[in-house]
Structures are given as structure tokens and as C-alpha cells.
């Protein structure tokens, strides 16, 4: 499966970032397992340590299994000043996890991230590809409920 993803791209080093994106997006647990790194390493003919260097450098990649839905809450100054800390506390309570952890049912992973460029609507978070803004503690509860129901 990893081989097939690789073969969509020319075997050139500058495609590494796209191949990794593609592998992660297609993995049900949204991460890049060690086996995948091996395959990519052979395909592009670059050492695994280079790939791990890249993997751990960019915040969008994960080397650990994650939930079905990835919540990325912005903690940069514009969101912080608008109360992202309260939103984070609420998220932790609703989900029963700490930052970086996945809920027991594998439904959500809670992550923090830097500026998402939607500061006009701070505080902001992304769940997978969707942006949610002007967050309040009440709104967060509704959003999580909605996503949960949508997944059932």
C-alpha cells in the first residue's frame, strides 16, 4: 500500500514531503508508521534518518497513531488573548484527555498548533480539514457533539 502511494510521485527527494502527507492522510490512524518510512527510504533512495529528521521537524506529521479526528487548537498570541486557554480546558474535560493524547474510543486526538491564519475569528481550531472559529466553551461542546454524531 505504501509502495503504491510512493509510485504516484517521481522518485525525487523533493517529493518526500508530499509522499509523507499522502501516506499520513490515507492511514486510518493518521500517522506514519516505521514500515512506511522503510518503503519511502528505498523508493527515494534516501536514509531513514533523513526521513525521520523531516518527519519530526514539521508539526503536521505524527509518528504515533492518532484518532479518527484530529483537533488542532491554535495557541498563538491572537488566540491566546481571546481565551484559547479556556477552550483548551473545556476540550480536555469533554474528551477526558491531555494535549497530545487520543480518546479511548479512538475518536479524537487533541493537539495544539501555531497560528492557522484565521485570526479574525480567534480563538480558532481545526478538526481535520475544517476550521471552527469564534470558539467559546459552549460552542466547543456543540462542535464535538456534532462531529461525534457525524461519525456514527
Amino acid at each position, binding site marked *: 500500500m505504501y509502495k503504491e502511494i510512493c509510485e504516484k510521485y517521481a522518485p525525487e527527494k523533493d517529493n518526500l514531503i*508530499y509522499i509523507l502527507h499522502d501516506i499520513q492522510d490515507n492511514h486510518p490512524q493518521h500517522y506514519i508508521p516505521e514500515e512506511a518510512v522503510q518503503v519511502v527510504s528505498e523508493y527515494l533512495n534516501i536514509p531513514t534518518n533523513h526521513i525521520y529528521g523531516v518527519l519530526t521537524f*514539521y508539526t503536521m506529521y505524527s509518528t504515533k497513531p492518532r484518532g479518527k479526528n484530529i483537533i488542532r487548537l491554535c495557541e498563538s498570541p491572537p488566540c491566546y488573548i481571546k481565551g484559547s486557554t479556556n477552550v483548551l480546558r473545556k476540550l480536555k474535560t469533554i474528551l477526558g484527555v491531555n494535549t497530545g493524547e487520543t480518546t479511548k474510543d479512538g475518536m479524537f486526538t487533541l493537539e495544539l498548533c*501555531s*497560528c*492557522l*491564519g484565521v*485570526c479574525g475569528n480567534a480563538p480558532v481550531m481545526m478538526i481535520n480539514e475544517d476550521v*471552527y472559529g469564534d470558539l467559546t466553551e459552549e460552542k466547543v461542546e456543540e462542535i464535538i457533539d456534532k462531529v461525534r454524531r457525524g461519525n456514527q
Partner: protein
Amino acid sequence: MKFYRSHILIGISEASLLAGAEDFIKELRKELAKYDLQDEINVLETGPLGFFGKGICLTVYPENITYQDVKIEDIPELVEEHFLKGRPVKRLMLDTTGKYKPRLNYENRIVLRNSGVIDPENIEEYIGVGGYEAWEKALTQMKPEDIVNEVKESGLQGRGGAGFPTGVKWSFTAPLKAPQKYVVVNADEGEPGTFKDRLIMEGDPHQLLEGMMICALAVGATKAYIYIRGEYKLCIERLRKAIAQAYEYGLIGKNIFGSGFDLDIDIKIGAGAYVCGEETALIESLEGNRGNPRWKPPFPGVEGLWKAPTVVNNVETLANVPFIIKNGAEAFRAYGTPQCTGTKVYTILGDVAYPGLCEVDMGTPLRTIINDYAGGMKKGFRFKAALVGGAAGVFIPERLLDVNMDFASLNQYAAVLGSGAILVMNEHQSIVDLLWSIIRFFRHESCGKCSACRNGCQQLYELITKIKKGEGTMEDVDLMLTIADTMYATSFCALGQSPIMPVRSALENFGDEFQEITKR
């Protein structure tokens, strides 16, 4: 072409999509059809309208009436009253009666002149307002040297933060003989509080492409990339469409208009790292590496992507170029101040009445921007400080509010124009607290290549955390300044050189807050 009695422009941006703009448009079209108005009233999806009324905003022409925060429930009333009976719905209109008169200032716009006016997904609309005339002029009437000179003459400075003269940058690359040269657009907008480039790309993607084409011709590059962050979904989608249309119309590709010049444009997507906004780190990332900055010199203009000469420019910078080439350097110099020409796009956030986006002349006082364009402070709030330039910016207190916003004037206060983010704080918000958040940001985003930045950010973070908790002393505060100063002097790239700006301006202007918190 069909003629309509009225046009309804709906600003489509991440923010309005968030408020449900897609369903809204469907409903609006349905409601108009109910009264058989679909051939009289045109509903157009366009880029951001240029101010941030909350939620979904519409502008109706020819009346030039703007509605804000319109909900699906309001559609029947709106259609019946305004579009059937011709009576605008006052309750939904953007307030233009009070102190605040929204200055959408189209006359003073260069970069955003088409944003919120044309359909960004339709190349013909861009051509209809004079788009790609500059490209034609550059290709058929100008030599590459003329283009570089014209841009030099215009005084255009890089809009990504540093303000380096664009024409001079191009003049390093243009004369070099190399088998391959590149143009790279830096659209990895990551400075907290900044999203001007997103709005420029969402509102008028073809203008950026035209700027890239002219730049490529001027420096002799046959490949151009847009390096954009993965989160900017709408931008990526619109740029992809725009590029496909440009190929279809023969504006790029092989032997363009028989001139013998070839150009290919492609999009490259980032993976989330603030430091990739630094041009050499961006190039590393394009090559499939960690985004660690490179040693300069050689500068990218001489040795960049794959060791080939590479011009890296910010989105806003290139979006200015078509205007300059089409209208001449003199026309561009009419905007701004003699030293800093042109306009600047700002994003204004925080406790102002109308947070949003504005494009004004270089040198416009900060007070004017906040009071006239953002409507002043929100009701019930008092101004305390403005953080200008994002995390790598400075705190401006009330007594300095009359500072002119341009590279030269801000330099006098050791401040920078930066990316154009203006974050306004009210009197209840703590400078120490915000500074803590800024330092935490730098600590997270430091790439770890040089020890000055890696260790410096960690030390700063520990100190400010201690101070924030009320456990620090004034010695800790002084130590922060020393560390930030050392980082400025010894860091490898601009990231490590940045913390001094917020730290020093916080201490200089709000020192009493630190005194108070360390006394507890």
C-alpha cells in the same frame, strides 16, 4: 453577456464559509427564483469584501449597500424588501451613521483593488478589469532590464517584513548566466495575527500569478513555485484553478505569445513550520529537507533552490508588480511617502469595533488605521497597546500611537512594520501574559539549528513563566533583556533575532507591569 438590474457580491473567505456561506448562497438563489428574479439579479461569489463585518457579508450594486452578518433566516425579508420592492433592509446594513464611516477606500487600493469586486475563479473577470495587460506589455514591449529598472524606480520594498528593495533583489539574479533559475513565492504565512496573503490569494489569485510571470521574465526564470501552507485550503484550490486557466489561455507554458519565453508555475505545499517563512529555510523545505535556514552568503538570488539562482518574494510584494508595470513607477510612487512608496495591507485584530483587513498608503499613522479603518475601540473598552508586526513585533503604547506606519518611521522606535499584523489590546489585558504567549511561540518554533536561539528561547520561556507566576524578581526581568540581546547578536537567522523586539518594547513601555508583578 447578460445584463442584470443588480449584482449581489458575496464575500467568500474562510471566515464566511465558517458562517455557512455555501448554504446561504443556495438559499438566496432559491428565494430569488421564487419571485422570478434570477435573470434580473446576479449573485456573485467573490473574495473577501475588505472589512470584517461578522459572518456573511454582501455588497449590492449599483446601490452600493453593504449588509453584514446576514443569516439564512434573513433571506426572505431581504429578497422581498430589497430586491422585489427596492427598500434596503436597514436593520442588516453595516452601520454608516455613527462615528464610524467604513472607509473601504477602493481609490487607494493597489493589491486589493479587485478583491470583493470580481469573481476570483474566473480569469475573464480579471482580464475584464485590465488584468494581464501588464504581462502583455512586459512580454512584448519591455526588455528584462527595463522591468527590473521600473521596479527599482518604483521603490517597491518586500512586504514580508524585512522591507528589502524588490528591484535590487531582482537585479542580483537577472544578469547571472545559469542553465536554470527559479522564482519562489513565499506564501507560508505563519506570523501570528497575519493573514493578509491568504486574503490576497483568495480575493485575486490571478494578480499574484501575473506578478510571478513578470518577475520570472525579468530575472530569466522558467520555473516558478508558490510555497503555500497546507492549511490554506481555499487559496490552494483557487490558485490551482487560476494556474489551469492561465495555461488554457496561453499566458504561461511554452513559447508564450510567440516570444520564445517559457514559464511553468506550480504549487508546493508546506507541512507546518514557522521558520519556513525564512527564505533559505523555505528553499530547504522545497528540496525535501528539514526547514533549517542556510548560511548567507551566498544569498538565494545567487545560489538558491537546487543551487540555482532563485528569487524569493512575498505574495503581497509580487501582487504589487502588475500595477507598477502597467502604470509605471511614477504612478506607484504617488502612493505612500517618498522613502517608502506604495500601500500596505494590514490585518487589524483584537478589541476594535471592526477587526479586519485594510490597505492604506505607506506612512498612514497607526492612530488613523485603528480609529478610521477599524472603527476605534469596541464599545466599553479602552486602548492599552497595539502589538504591531505579529510575534516578532513590538508593543506600541498610546503615547506613540501617532507613529507613521512605514519602514523608515518605525525604525526610529526600533520597531518593524513586519508582516502587517496589528493586535489591539484593551486595558484589562496583561502585557506580561501576552509576552509569555509570544515567547512560548518562539520556543516552539525555534528550529534548533543554532544554540543561541534553541537555548535562548528555552531560557526566556523559563524566566517569563516564573515572572508570570509572580515568583520572579527584577533581576530575572533584566536577564531576559540580556538573553534576548545576545540572541539578537548571535542567532543564525531572523527567528532568533526576533524575541528582543517584543521583550524590549514591553519592558520600555510597560515596565511598571513587571515591577508590580515581581513585587508580589
